[in-house]
């Protein structure tokens, strides 16, 4: 999100806040346009138009699978009736027209020489756009016809995870880029994983997986296409989160309250704090933060610690700054988006760290991976608790690591935290009585808390060595240097 993006979004948010009757429409329209506006320019011809369009298409498909009313609930294949909702495509025809019209309007900017103001490069000609929309419409209609089948939601989950795997795995992304380049009539020799940078796909995917999974377990509220589309690509949160839940988002969206002075003040405060964190502190620290180049060039332990600390604070201020901006913009529009950070570097243990760092991601993984996995591990043969915790935490944290990219370094970063969480879990079990004794000795308790906070912070900071660097070699070298070995 650039400074210009933030200014534009702030104006729209204020407008939506002071004009509650138009808020729904404004938010949807701004969210759809923001997909094109924030999408980075790509070297594959027209891909920076098609990817935002695909985000809209995926959301439409998921809505059809997830929310469309069942007409015949007697089939043995159907989940119980109460899990389905009285919504059908005809009732959302206006929204369908808005979506198609908006995509066509963006494409038409090509002919008005206005594309530079909205899209990163010139959109494709109208013919391919209409063909693309026709294909999308056929796909949506087809899904609509089969949405009553049990396999549609699992299949959609697999497709989204498949796209995710391609985008996050360099070799697969490069192969996909090669195919796309060939399709676009461009040289495949230049294909690179960086060719497919899809704005906000991660967060879009988390939202789709959440509703698809909740549809399978029958926990979804009713939702129109317009509401779902707004939730899915909500512009303050599309680039960096937080990952909201639809049942929390919908009441805010449906509320007709207008912007209060208090919300204006609180929202503005968050936005200014976010801008300061992101563009002043984080961008400044970025200059000196650990990088692949500096990892190879620094020979002194002291300087290595310096750049590693700079990295740790840079990543925190950059990410939490983005979240502050999203929360502030949301507040102006009347959305109380969930908090994502709560002083994570001041937590006294690793479990508390993960309850205060990227909280919505951790909650998502807890709901959709850790809890089902541990339930599954416990149910058939009553595995020992420590095994369940070990497997659950390692698997969850490795998966969170791989979400950032399918590399050994991200996997090891996840493993680092998984092991850390397990060790903390066992430690807290073992030391529970002893720590409780400290309650009566406040000085000792404070000292213990300070030491634990420092140790937790150091553990997290060292973990960033895996996260920040591209290879095991360079990470290994940095670890050696940090502790005074030449490496």
């Amino acid at each position, binding site marked *: 999100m650039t400074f210009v993006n933030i200014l534009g979004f702030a104006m729209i948010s204020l407008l939506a806040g002071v004009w509650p009757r138009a808020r729904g429409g404004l938010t949807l329209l701004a969210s759809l346009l923001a997909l094109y506006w924030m999408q980075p320019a790509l070297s594959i011809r027209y891909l920076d138009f098609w990817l935002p369009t695909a985000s809209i298409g995926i959301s439409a498909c998921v809505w059809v699978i997830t929310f469309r009313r069942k007409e015949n609930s007697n089939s043995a294949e159907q989940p119980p009736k109460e899990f389905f909702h009285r919504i059908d495509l005809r009732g959302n025809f206006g929204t369908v027209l808005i979506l198609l019209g908006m995509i066509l309007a963006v494409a038409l900017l090509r002919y008005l020489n206005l594309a530079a103001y909205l899209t990163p490069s010139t959109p494709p000609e109208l013919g391919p756009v209409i063909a693309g929309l026709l294909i999308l419409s056929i796909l949506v209609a087809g899904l609509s016809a089969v949405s009553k089948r049990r396999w549609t939601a699992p299949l959609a989950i697999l497709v989204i995870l498949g796209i995710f795997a391609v985008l996050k795995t360099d070799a697969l992304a490069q192969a996909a880029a090669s195919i796309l380049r060939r399709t676009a009539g461009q040289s495949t020799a230049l294909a690179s994983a960086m060719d497919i940078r899809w704005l906000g796909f991660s967060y879009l995917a988390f939202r789709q997986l959440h509703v698809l999974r909740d549809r399978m377990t029958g926990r979804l509220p009713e939702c129109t296409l317009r509401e779902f589309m707004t939730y899915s690509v909500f512009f303050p949160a599309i680039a960096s989160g937080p990952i909201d839940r639809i049942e929390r988002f919908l009441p805010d969206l449906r509320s007709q309250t207008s912007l209060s002075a*208090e919300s*204006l003040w609180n929202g503005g405060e968050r936005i200014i704090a976010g801008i300061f964190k992101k563009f002043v502190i984080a961008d400044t620290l970025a200059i000196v933060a650990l990088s692949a180049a500096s990892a190879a060039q620094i020979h002194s332990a002291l300087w290595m610690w310096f750049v590693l600390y700079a990295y740790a604070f840079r990543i925190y201020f950059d990410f939490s700054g983005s979240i502050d901006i999203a929360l502030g913009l949301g507040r102006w529009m009347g959305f109380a988006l969930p908090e994502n950070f709560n002083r994570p570097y001041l937590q006294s243990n690793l479990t508390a760290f993960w309850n205060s760092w990227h909280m919505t991601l951790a909650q998502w993984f807890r709901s959709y991976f850790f809890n089902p996995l541990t339930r599954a591990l416990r149910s058939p043969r009553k595995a020992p608790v420590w095994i369940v915790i070990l497997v659950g935490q390692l698997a969850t944290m490795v998966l969170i690591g791989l979400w950032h990219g399918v590399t050994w370094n991200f996997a090891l970063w996840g493993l680092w935290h998984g092991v850390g969480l397990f060790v903390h879990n066992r430690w807290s079990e073992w030391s529970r009585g002893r720590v409780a004794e400290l309650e009566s000795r406040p000085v000792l308790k404070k000292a213990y808390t300070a030491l634990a906070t420092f140790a937790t912070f150091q553990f997290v900071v060292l973990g960033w060595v895996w996260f920040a660097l591209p290879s095991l070699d360079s990470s290994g070298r940095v670890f050696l240097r940090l502790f005074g070995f030449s490496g």
Partner: protein
Amino acid sequence: MSETGRLIRNVLLKALLLFLAVSGLFALVHPMAALGRLSIYNELVPGRERLPYGEHPQSDYNLSLFNLDAMLASHEIAAPPAPGEFRVALIGDSSTWGYLLPPDQTMAALINRSGAEPLRVYNLGYPTLSVTKDLLMMQSALRYQPDLIVWLVTLESLPQEKQLDSPIVQNNADAVRGLIARYGLRSNAADPRLITPTFWDQTIPGQRRDLADLVRLQLYGFLWAATGVDQSFPAHYDPPQKDLDPDVSFHGRMPPTLSPDSLALDVLNAGREMAGNVPVWIVNEPIYVSTGRSSDIRYNFFYPRWAYDQYRQILDAWCRDHGVPYLDAWDAVPAEDFSNSAIHRTPQGEALLAGWLEAAILKDGNVR
């Protein structure tokens, strides 16, 4: 309007007024030079061994900026001298700065490493070819009381019409106009290439990039201290052009005569006058001599033989006439020891020239 609404309005109005007032004051006071002298270099981190210049800041840990005070403040010459130190300032272009050379392999570093105490050589070379740019650097360097100034020049830095082409010259218009007025230089003080900032340019918003550059220069100081890197190197570069076009012209000048009037010898004279009691040596720096196609017409990409030969004679005569010690090193480095242009040297070429210059300074420099 509610109480909170009024509070917000008042805060915004006061913030705006305060910002306008501070910004206007900033434009009137011109604090950039003073701000440039605030530096972590030589205090928290070691001074740079050469002036800040970076084409790729993120990998160079270095950047190009136009604030001469900040540039000099970040240099090791700004540190207090060691007792009895004999300070030599090397002034020149990118070949003196050490383009494509690590900081410990530049001429200055090599001489310092040779252990010829109390001799201490400071690299004040700066990329771009213009003796007026060199004069600006010399003016700043004199604040740090050198005992000897060695000014490395080449013909390409002397054409009169090129004097104001260097970006650092253009962006220090007031200082350059001052030099023109003080020393009667032939460059035109009203030349449109000299960038005259408007009032807006001097406000805080107008100076935002320069202010950011000052901060970035300090931040890159940490990485300079941590890594000792101040320049990143390309994986590959082309050697100097060996096969040349049979072109006899030099910046539009045709044989047979190179007029001394077309060269900025007045700038050299200004340097001599500016230095006062500090001796200034002029060194004609080495050039690549091609043996390829058309090498009978040209020495290299820069120079046709007729123009360069006459330049050497002109410079020699001018130095003799003005009592300036002159060293002609034009062929001191063999062709294979040039890196990517007719004036940039390899580490081997740099070592040759360093040894040659060190011997000359120790012999004739009155090193105490």
